[in-house]
């Protein structure tokens, strides 16, 4: 009853296998080729930036304000602005993001409200960054009257990286085994105690990784900040956060105009003079090193987490 029409004689197997193995090899080659091209581009990018910008990197460059003369221009106001804005961003994004992540993982009941929140978080992760800028412009700068300030920049970047922090928090908490929770509840802890004393500490590395990745992204974000009106030629520093007299800390700097590293770079590269392009390369180098270091740190922490889990 069995028809053997499809059974090949042993000799043909050799040919079939040979042909199939060749296809396999070609595809593996293609995969490696893609990888090489991508890495090659990254290398080319770094080298190009270094070749153009290395010459301009100096102590003067880091401590001068921008200027109409390219050889005198520096990134002082830019990196100070970036640091201050990052402080605000972290200050806003971490509590909001961790809080939201905690709520969604541990507290949220399975109802329509929770669904709406989750859909929103997913959706916001896909919204282009410049739209956040438009939101901040219309709402924070004008409707709330906060003006084009460091505070608003911090707010818009915090909202931008909020989904990153939320997802990182959720993943970190989700990976905690159920036994830990059950043990805590069995001891008589209530929900907040369990979260505060057991879950959050265990999730800390994961949350930290997510925060670092988010901030690394925020450092390089230009579009939303330009939209809210960050000026590109700032030749002054915001008021210092600390002061010698009482109360030692002031918040005036939040209200100050400012510029950021990527904005400064954008400004320089938009000029036709090639000399400014060199400045842009140098600024870009500093920026790149900062983001690569932060991303590298996050990767390292994640590696340590995984090793710890083995």
């Amino acid at each position, binding site marked *: *009853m*069995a*028809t*053997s*029409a*499809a*059974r*090949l004689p*042993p000799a043909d*197997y050799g040919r*079939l*296998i040979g042909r*199939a*193995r060749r296809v396999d090899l070609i595809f593996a080659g293609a995969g490696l080729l893609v990888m090489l091209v991508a890495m090659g581009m990254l290398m080319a990018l770094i080298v190009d930036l270094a070749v153009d910008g290395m010459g301009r990197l100096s102590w003067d460059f880091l401590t001068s304000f921008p200027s109409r003369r390219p050889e005198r221009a520096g990134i002082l106001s830019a990196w100070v602005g970036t640091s201050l804005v990052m402080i605000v961003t972290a200050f806003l994004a971490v509590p909001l993001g961790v809080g939201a992540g905690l709520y969604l993982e541990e507290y949220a009941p399975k109802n329509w409200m929770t669904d709406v929140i989750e859909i929103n978080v997913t959706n916001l992760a896909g919204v282009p960054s410049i739209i956040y800028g438009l939101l901040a412009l219309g709402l924070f700068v004008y409707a709330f009257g906060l003006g084009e300030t460091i505070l608003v920049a911090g707010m818009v970047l915090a909202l931008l990286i909020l989904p990153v922090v939320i997802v990182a928090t959720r993943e970190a908490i989700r990976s905690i085994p159920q036994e830990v929770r059950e043990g805590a509840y069995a001891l008589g802890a209530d929900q907040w105690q369990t979260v505060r004393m057991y879950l959050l500490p265990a999730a800390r590395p994961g949350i930290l990784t997510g925060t670092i990745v988010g901030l690394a992204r925020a450092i390089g974000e230009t579009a939303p900040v330009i939209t809210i009106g960050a000026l590109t030629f700032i030749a002054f520093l915001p008021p210092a956060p600390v002061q010698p007299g009482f109360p030692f800390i002031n918040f005036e700097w939040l209200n100050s105009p400012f510029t950021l590293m990527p904005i400064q770079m954008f400004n320089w590269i938009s000029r036709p003079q090639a000399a400014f392009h060199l400045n842009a390369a140098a600024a870009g180098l500093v920026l790149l090193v900062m983001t690569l270091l932060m991303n590298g740190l996050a990767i390292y922490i994640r590696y340590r987490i995984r090793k710890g889990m083995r």
Partner: protein
Amino acid sequence: MSIRQAQRSGGVEVEAREVEAPERAERLAVPMAEPKGLTQQRTQAAAAPEPRAEPAKPKVEIRNLNFWYGDFQALKDISIPVGERQVTALIGPSGCGKSTFLRCFNRMHDLYPGNRYQGEILLYPDGINLVDRRTDPMLPRLRIGMVFQKPNPFPKSIYENVAAGLRIRGVRRKSLIDDKIELALKQASLWDEVKDRLGTSAYELSGGQQQRLCIARTLAPDPEVLLLDEPTSALDPISTARIEELVDGLREQYTIVIVTHNMQQAARVSQRTAFFHLGRIVEWNDTELIFTNPKESMTQDYITGRFG
């Protein structure tokens, strides 16, 4: 003697005889010499199934097979013939090497790093060594089919699942593919249930149906040997019974090796049984003899349920 065995041999009582060559276990129950130091003579088996004493030609012969997972030796010096057009059952407690042994036939272990074969698995009629490093792993897979413990149909339609093996072997003519699919599904006792919905997703079938689909998919390219790795352990008793019936029918055309942790299944379905323990074959013989008159006390202990 069980009713089934009586029906086959026509109620003839058989006696134990010391013979070296493997024989068709249906006609005579013949105990084999023990695996250690076994020498085999191959005899030609008659092609037609007639009720007379015929030695069974081995389809596969395993000689001194050793296998390591990394540093751990999982199979120790296995030597056993697998008779053509017979069902050979592998029984034994969990983790003693039955599935490991089965997966050597089609080089499944090559998919994971760190494994090592030593010895021979010879596939006849050409006598090629399947576990030789120089043999491409695809070769045994093209000639030998395997059905897994958990049904694993592809995320495609029923038709495409059964056609998969044919397509990669270069079969292109649609009429031929259609015929072979119908044949395979009939052999797997699934045709009547799905013939009107060949285009629907395989995941809409029940567990037992999915497993029969996997059997059909394996049969379509006419494998020379069929490996069944605990095919019914994930199924309900009714599906199990159907598949056992199936296997019994398939025996007429295919050489079958089945791993099972269910001794009754081995007794029902196979003509020859091998008992595995800690990576060795303790004893192998005609099924009837293994269960009624085992030579090793360990076999006796396992069969009577004293361990495992």
